[in-house]
């Protein structure tokens, strides 16, 4: 029945082709640029093949950016999941139905805030003199100055806390809703089986929710890769290079400091390859 089967194809193919072009062209273009030595200041260029990549591996600032990115990824993903599961379980255990609705509403608000706004709000909250987040410290120490965003040891965590504030609370709502969808009988059976409240969650409910929780974690991992706006507003990669992730560094190499577009593209290509490989492996691990 060629007539019947050609109709869906007619509709689907153009869209797919457009999508493919939209996603493939920039990617291919980035790869091509990464093999050249283009700079923003001139139109002249030549093919340098892999020398950008070799340069990267001897660039200490790049290696630092890799390390910061890994730290950022691990800290935000782990903290988000811990906060989400902790708060979700806590709400499930102690909050009444009405209170749960109120909390859910409150916890969804941060994630609705545009990232840049959230970043500005918290940048001010972390202000050493006027910030509300540093107020307890000033109160307890009798007016000592604490500036988390300008200390290399705390800056990353201060920025990460904003990310967790946005996503951890939102995920807590999702975890609560997931817990509410579970059938009550296994939980009751566990109560009869001498399980304490925390054991019920550790051994019964959370394992039952393993698949959705892993999916949530993947969503957060992908989301954490796109932290540019948050870091840009709060620290611009500083102090020094303490919060300079790969995308921050690529951006500043490409457009701010030296205009080395090809060098930045090489970084982007490496990031893409690393991300694809890591996620494929993780996904396989989880599926197994």
């Amino acid at each position, binding site marked *: 029945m060629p007539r019947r089967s050609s109709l869906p194809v007619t509709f689907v193919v153009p869209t797919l082709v457009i999508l493919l072009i939209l996603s493939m062209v920039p990617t291919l273009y980035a790869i091509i640029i990464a093999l050249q030595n283009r700079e923003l200041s001139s139109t002249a260029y030549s093919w340098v093949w892999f020398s950008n990549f070799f340069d990267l591996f001897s660039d200490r600032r790049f290696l630092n950016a890799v390390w910061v990115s890994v730290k950022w990824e691990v800290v935000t993903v782990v903290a988000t999941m811990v906060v989400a599961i902790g708060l979700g379980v806590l709400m499930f255990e102690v909050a009444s139905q009405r209170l749960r609705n109120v909390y859910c509403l409150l916890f969804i608000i941060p994630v609705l805030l545009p990232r840049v706004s959230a970043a500005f709000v918290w940048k001010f909250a972390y202000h050493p003199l006027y910030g509300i987040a540093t107020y307890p410290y000033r109160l307890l120490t009798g007016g000592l100055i604490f500036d988390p965003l300008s200390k290399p040891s705390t800056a990353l965590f201060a920025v990460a806390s904003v990310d967790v504030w946005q996503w951890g609370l939102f995920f807590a709502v999702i975890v609560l809703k997931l817990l509410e969808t579970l059938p009550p009988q296994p939980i009751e059976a566990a109560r009869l089986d001498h399980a*304490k409240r925390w054991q019920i969650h550790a051994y019964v409910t959370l394992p*039952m929710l393993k698949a959705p929780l892993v999916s949530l974690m993947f969503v957060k991992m992908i989301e954490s890769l796109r932290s540019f706006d948050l870091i840009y507003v709060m620290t611009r990669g500083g102090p020094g290079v303490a919060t300079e992730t790969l995308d921050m560094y690529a951006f500043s190499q490409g457009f701010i400091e030296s205009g080395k577009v090809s060098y930045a593209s090489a970084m982007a290509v490496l990031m893409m390859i690393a991300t694809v490989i890591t996620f494929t492996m993780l996904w396989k691990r989880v599926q197994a």
Partner: protein
Amino acid sequence: MSAIVCSHVDKAYGATTVIRDLNLSIEEHEFVVFLGPSGCGKSTLLRMLAGLEDISGGEVSIGGKVVNDLDPGDRGIAMVFQNYALYPHMTIFDNIAFGLRRQKVPAPEIDKRVRAVAATLGLDPYLGRKPAELSGGQQQRVAIARAMIKTPKVFLFDEPLSNLDAKLRNHMRVEIARLHQSLKTTTVYVTHDQLEAMTLADRIVLLKDGVIEQIGSPAEIYGRPANIFVAGFIGTPNMNFIEVTVARSGNGWTLTGAGTALSIDGAGFHLQPGGRAVLGIRPPDLKTARDGDAGILQGTADLIEFHGNDALVTFGSGGKEISALVPARECPVLHAPVRYMFEEANIHLFDATSGASLRQQ
């Protein structure tokens, strides 16, 4: 000593009272079945015994100890749920062992006990599987194993067989009966299936709207129902009820209603001349009448349901539908006139207003 005592137990959800001033005492080793129509509070009562539902008023004690405020785990009970409630992510072995592990029983002993219980219930081949890889009957056996391994003082079952098909249900019913014979553990069993109640129970507790209508052995409940509700609820096909007026006649009594007048001796019943009563006769107690018999109900056969050995004949008598269960070979043809008689020993009489039995105790 009684295994379970409920005294003046109430349960309310907000403004709606589900259980009202319930008093019940269950002996050790007894098999008690809670029976009643849907929504009468059977599960609620059972869950209150288990500690899964808090008690609004009154006192529940298990093994001589008041358990109102004890955690479910500390009440010495084990429960089997209608939908098995297995832990889906654990193997069968882990499912059965879960309770022992939480009590910190040493691993070698857990292993020994799980294997022993699995052997009793024929679960050996499945210990490494997940619940989703078992049939419904096997899953319910795992649920029973999980309850058994705790060696509880009391077993609680909430409609454990209602998710199974008819054949498997019979099989599992026999298995539960056998298990109770060998373990002798006090058991409370909730069902709305009469056959299960009749075959398993030492005593049946018949509930309606959170109130106990009658407590008694299956034979008592069937043979001497305390009121119209119990009489109508127990027994398939359902008992026939005929509203009658009672009158004195000579040494006996005459019951007039449904187009006939029936003479009975009336000994054994509290009857009032001129009073109104409800006569109850079970369909199997109606026999094909011969000439000269007394106590005759007659009409035309409207409906004949063939059951195999028997046939259920429904006929109209004085505007009232009456059913008789007769041997298939005596089955009349449709629309033929039929006449049935009964023996006085088999009838039930109830007060027309209160519904209570008029039988002398």
